[in-house]
């Protein structure tokens, strides 16, 4: 009886230990032969390579750790942009899929079927090598609304030049914190006295008034810097000033958001369809207006179905952003597992750090999701 329980476990353990032992023994010998010692000390060494696009100050004189940070920030940047646009497109398409208008319904269906059945890598290549290459050169570009320039070298947008930016950010944080407190207070008040507080208008007002106050009294000052065309050589032009979004970032964000939006659209559709028809009818029969039905009855139940798979899609998008390496957008994989690995030859350390970064991201999100699922699960008696 006991033997039957212990034996398979022991065998598994033995196999795992043997495989690991075999691997680490070989790794030790291989590294000795190549004259490298295992360790993470190289992270503080000078990296001596340059990165094309970075959010923080970086050049060859900085350390490998800073290169890692540059890559990580670029990954986060493209993921956040992708997530925002994927959510917008996904929700719109998902609702369009539910429309009773045949044309809208079919258009959305065609979009979903088309974009999710083509490999993401192919889509990235398509946008980067085919579609964006058809854009005009900087000198031939017609400005959009006078300030945006979409060229083959990237998308140039006006930049804000801030004075005392920190005060402005503090004002927004203060607004958000006070909104949270007001919400808690309003909920309590409604539970105790049955009186509703207009939370939404108060929140919007706070979000507007506090930053305006910071402009008036905090010494905050913003001006807009519009990109201006500049001649580099006989035929070479570029834009100066403003913010430059490189074509790699644009094509990556486009492909990621269009691809992930199809999955989010399906999640939204499944969620809204998952709310049973009786709920809607019951809500209408107690005299709620259509808006109230949507806000108080349908959405809370649909969101319970929509949010878990959608978070999964966000996670997938973040992991898929590593395809950036294919078009040389300097994300974590390209900068760290590509360039830094080539330079140092420390395959084990670098690949393990890269994997651990993604792993900790995924695991923290899945822990959060488990907590959230438990919190919103319907408590059946």
């Amino acid at each position: 009886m006991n033997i039957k329980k212990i034996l398979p476990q022991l065998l598994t353990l033995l196999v795992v230990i043997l495989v690991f032992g075999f691997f680490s023994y070989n790794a030790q010998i291989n590294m000795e032969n190549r004259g490298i010692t295992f360790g993470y000390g190289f992270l503080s060494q000078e990296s001596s390579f340059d990165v094309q696009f970075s959010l923080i100050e970086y050049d060859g004189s900085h350390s490998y750790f800073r290169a890692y940070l540059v890559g990580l920030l670029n990954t986060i940047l493209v993921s956040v942009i992708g997530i925002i646009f994927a959510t917008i497109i996904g929700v719109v398409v998902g609702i369009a899929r539910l429309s009773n208008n045949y044309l809208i319904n079919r258009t959305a269906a065609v979009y979903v079927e088309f974009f999710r059945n083509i490999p993401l890598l192919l889509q990235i290549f398509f946008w980067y090598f085919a579609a964006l290459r058809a854009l005009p050169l900087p000198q031939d570009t017609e400005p959009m609304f006078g300030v945006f320039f979409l060229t083959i070298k990237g998308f140039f947008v006006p930049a804000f030049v801030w004075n005392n930016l920190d005060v402005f950010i503090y004002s927004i944080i203060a607004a958000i914190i006070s909104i949270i407190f007001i919400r808690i207070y309003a909920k309590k008040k409604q539970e105790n006295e049955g009186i509703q507080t207009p939370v939404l208008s108060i929140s919007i007002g706070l979000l507007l008034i506090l930053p305006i106050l910071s402009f008036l009294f905090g010494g905050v000052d913003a001006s807009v810097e519009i990109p201006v065309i500049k001649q580099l050589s006989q035929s070479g032009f570029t834009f100066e000033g403003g913010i430059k979004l490189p074509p790699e970032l644009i094509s990556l964000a486009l492909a990621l958001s269009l691809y992930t939006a199809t999955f989010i659209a399906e999640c939204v559709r499944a969620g809204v369809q998952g709310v049973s028809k009786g709920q809607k009818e019951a809500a209408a029969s107690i005299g709620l207006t259509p808006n109230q039905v949507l806000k108080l009855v349908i959405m809370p139940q649909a969101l319970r179905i929509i949010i878990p798979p959608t978070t999964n899609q966000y996670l997938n998008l973040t992991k898929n952003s590593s395809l950036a390496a294919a078009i040389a957008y300097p994300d974590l994989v390209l900068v760290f597992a590509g360039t830094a690995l080539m330079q140092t030859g420390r395959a084990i350390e670098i690949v393990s750090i890269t994997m651990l970064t993604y792993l900790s991201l995924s695991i923290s999100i899945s822990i959060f999701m488990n907590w959230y699922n438990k919190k919103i699960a319907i408590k059946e008696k």
Partner: protein
Amino acid sequence: MNKLNFLQPDKNNLYTYLYTGVILIALSIFIVFLNSFFNKDIISFLPGSISFFLPIILGFIGLHLIRIDYSGLKFLDSINKNINTNNFNAFLSLLIVFVVIKSLPPLLSWFIIDANIAGDSKDVCTGSGACWTYIKIWFNRFMYGMYPNAEQWRINLSFIALAFLGCIGFFATEKFKKYLTLYYVVVYPIIAFFFIFFFISGGPIFFDFSYGIIAAVISIIIGFFIPSKFKMYYFIIVPITLYILLKYVFFYEELIELGKLEALEWVETGAWGGLSLTFIVSFFCLIFCFPIGLFLSLGRRSDFPIIKYFSIGMIEFWRGVPLITVLFMSSVMFPMFLPEDMFIDKLVRVIIAISLFEAAYVAEVIRGGLQALPRGQYDAAKSLGMGYWKMHILVILPQALKLVIPGIANTFLALVKDTPLIFVVGLLEIVGMLNLAKTNPEWLGFAMEGYVFASVLFFIICYAMSKYSYNLEQKYKTER
């Protein structure tokens, strides 16, 4: 009570409204049609913005005029119900129709009218449309990669043979139906392995392939005379024994001689590529990732703590990292873990990496199915005195797997769509070949054609797969 019914038809004056509305709609569509197909602007005498918005205004008024709750005319009612329920819907419908009409001419001209397919060099592509000549010239490379032209019949033959062997299940009679699972789980993958690895790569080990086929044929023939009680063991043991006997005892000398005389040319895996490599990689990963995922999912629900936590660790690890880093690991990190004289082929490493990666997703999908089964099923099976494996094979898995067909199909689709990533280790399947062809100095500037071609191919493959899985789902759907 009088409802405000501004310019809306009712039963009495329906036809007046209907004719006016239809004329207005037809006019608006006609204007857009002329504008986009023949480049003629018949309303250009109007000031700029009005001539731009006029079609949509006309169509909108037309749709508004024909909107009626119930008219008795079948066509009108179906239009009103489907695209014209209210002003907002009418506006969106018009917008979609106009966008389709507007975008048809450029698309048509790019794909067909101005496109070139004749000739065999870049010079014929002078028009503004697509250059299908490029696809035509490179078609062979896109399909077979760098595989030598004279040997490509081997790939074709293998795929045809495998497709044929795969279809056997559809023609099996009732008597053989019970062996189908065994066939698909054990025999078919082995045959496929022989075909792909020995027939396509060729070389001296081609004879291993012939031994394998001979062993399989002989064992199937003998198999008819074996009592069915032992068949399970028989079909695993006998082919392998026969294979070893054939290889090391019987025909050894003669075939060594033959091998010197004539053998299939050796083609290393680095030269494989194109769509055929996509198929090979997806096929093997598909075969391998399913059993691994099945065991992981069973392990995760096991009562043995070590096995349970081992499975959880495996699943969460592979699910938590992007595939590209797994491939990086298999290409730069994995060789460090092996003895120096041991070398594993690049393709094999990739297949192992992708299989493990997808297995974790399959495991989670199957776990969903296992969790969805009511406890009563387990209890009933146990009360009949079934052991763990018997219970799972006969009662639990058939029901659980049926539940998760859509999920597994989605995982397999994701697998097929992930295969282009093998460019990381330097294997060029179709997308990789496109990127290579794009940089060829004689064929610069045809990136668009290549990507459109590959997109269409992938779309057909993936769409067919998803439709097939939908059919399977409907077929095995049971009411609970």
